[in-house]
């Protein structure tokens, strides 16, 4: 999308010309995790801005900014790895467990990690 299309799109949304703050719930959660970790002093906002900038400046970043929160999440993962809290593999494994748990959970029931059939 061109800049003009993005502007037009953001104006087409009612209520004060503001687009919804988050397009999907995971974006809101990823956003809040960063704010919470910063509140806790895990990193400075400057460190965060640099980590985010590195992701947003990747050559494959989309021109319409629709992958902004993908970059946000990648920056969060990178900063967590730098601080030796969790590596990519830990996150991959647990994400896969959540996905298996979601598949194994009957519709309408809360998804719990305990529902993962491969849980060891």
């Amino acid at each position, binding site marked *: 999308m061109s800049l003009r299309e*993005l502007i037009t799109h953001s104006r087409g949304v009612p209520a*004060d010309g503001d687009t919804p*703050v988050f397009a999907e719930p995971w974006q809101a959660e990823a956003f*809040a995790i960063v*704010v919470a970790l910063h509140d806790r002093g895990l990193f400075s906002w400057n460190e965060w801005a640099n980590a985010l900038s590195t992701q947003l400046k990747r050559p494959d970043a989309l021109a319409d*900014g629709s992958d*902004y929160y993908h970059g946000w999440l990648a920056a969060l993962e990178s900063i*967590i790895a730098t601080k030796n809290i*969790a590596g990519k593999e830990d996150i991959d494994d647990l994400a896969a467990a959540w996905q298996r748990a979601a598949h194994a959970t009957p519709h309408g029931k809360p998804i719990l990690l305990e529902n993962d059939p491969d849980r060891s």
Partner: protein
Amino acid sequence: MAARVRALETILTQKGLIDPLAIDAIVETYETKVGPRNGASVVAKAWVDSEYADWLKRDATAAIAYLSYTGRQGEHMQAVFNTPDTHNLVVCTLCSCYPWSVLGLPPVWYKSPPYRSRAVIDPRGVLAEFGLTLPATTNIRVWDSTAELRYLVVPLRPAGTEGFTEDQLAALVTRDSMIGTGLPLATEAV
């Protein structure tokens, strides 16, 4: 993506670094409580109260905190005042630094690569995309935000608003007019 965020949340909660209830509270705050109405009340107050306007010029961080809008990232605020000769425009070329405490979270276009790359090189062309054409004699100053310093544009008070209350004035102040990509609403639009 949802599963990855869930995984991160699980790890960080287990390590005692975040509290899921606090995460919900942050989302709630940014979805409903913080938005451009905060900034609009700052601008309206500066329009009616010249002492407040002076304070905002000198020390925007303190003047804005006085209205109970404080930044979470410990960032400093600077208010940049439009004049008949100079129009101010705010961007963050690095990523998406934005005065959250007074404007909420940034709109989609603010975070987009074309805005971030073009606002500095061709501000006049960018403003034209927003439908804003300024006289050729008007200077455009572009302010590049950082993690430590964020900007709030104080637009010119629209003509014909003598005797307006602060609330009536605040209703004229749009989000875009505080980023510099727009002007306040004209009085007949209200």
